[in-house]
């Protein structure tokens, strides 16, 4: 019998999309494993998802407290060993706060909470979630956040752009970048980035909400399929 990739989904106090993430993993053919923020244990999973929500009520800064939660010691070690880690929305904020990804997510330039389907232009296939995609390809995935504007120091921005660490940019459905297609005012239309090795990826849009054709776009499918495939390769184990 073929082994199913085991994908851990961390639940922090205030996580909202952990159940959806587990459901999406299962629907894509993975084995979803619930992980708890207060444990020092990843239960031997092959990949980790940090889900969306409002961990610790977004107190202090979005993701700031969660980034210092006990399980983040293990997530950090797993990431440094090459294990696939995907941070979605609040999970992206957590990865930035934990120093596993560059930059920070701040309040949307419009001051408005945005909740809509957006188009993302894939910028690199060299990551654990874009293996099956081609640079320039478009996927449609929803966003829902009030603090998703990615910003960085000048040095970080140079590095992220210079070393090809941008994974997704908000674009029109024709792939063209514009302010109108940038839901939060993110620097250089950046929706998601990766670490140097490409095993750690964070993005504001929600691939776990875009796998079921009955309820909306399915742009999340190739991302999760890629994550499952990378997980099976067992890099982080």
């Amino acid at each position, binding site marked *: 019998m073929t082994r199913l990739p085991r994908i851990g989904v961390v639940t922090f106090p205030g996580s909202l999309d952990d159940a959806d993430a587990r459901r999406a993993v299962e629907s894509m053919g993975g084995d979803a494993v619930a992980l708890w923020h207060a444990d020092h244990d990843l239960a031997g999973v092959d990949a980790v998802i940090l889900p969306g929500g409002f961990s610790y009520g977004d107190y*202090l*800064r979005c993701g*700031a407290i969660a980034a*210092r939660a006990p399980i983040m010691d293990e997530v950090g070690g797993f990431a440094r060993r090459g294990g696939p880690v995907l941070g979605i929305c609040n999970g992206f904020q957590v990865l*930035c*706060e934990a120093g596993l990804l560059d*930059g*920070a997510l*701040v*309040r*949307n*330039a*419009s*001051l408005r909470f945005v909740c809509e389907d957006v188009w993302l232009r894939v910028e690199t296939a060299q990551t654990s979630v874009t293996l099956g995609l081609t640079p320039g390809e478009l996927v449609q995935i929803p966003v829902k956040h009030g603090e998703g504007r990615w*910003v*960085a*120091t000048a040095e*970080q921005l140079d590095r992220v752009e210079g070393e090809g660490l941008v994974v997704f940019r908000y674009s029109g459905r024709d792939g063209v970048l514009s302010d109108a297609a940038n839901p939060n*005012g993110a620097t250089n239309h950046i929706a998601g980035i990766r670490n140097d090795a490409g095993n750690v990826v964070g993005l504001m849009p929600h691939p776990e909400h875009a796998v079921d054709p009955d309820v909306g776009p399915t742009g999340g499918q190739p991302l999760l399929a890629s994550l499952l495939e990378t997980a099976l390769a067992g890099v982080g184990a």
Partner: protein
Amino acid sequence: MTIYTFEVLVSLKPGLLDPQGKAVEGSLPAMGFDGVVDVRVGKHIKLSVEAPDEAAATTQVHEMATKVLSNPVIEDYEVLAVAAS
């Protein structure tokens, strides 16, 4: 041991768009406050630390400010010592 009380002021770095500040700024003229040219919204954290001396307490607070109370990517901070008891 003495208890030292500090105030940590956290502000968005200059030049970083502060939509909250802009929203407050935009509301002020309607209330009759003219001449306001800039508003930035930050955080004020008051904390008390038990330590053998003020230097030790100050070192701890700066470490906390760097590691968690502020995010150096987007924020600056300032530590004010306000009381010892």
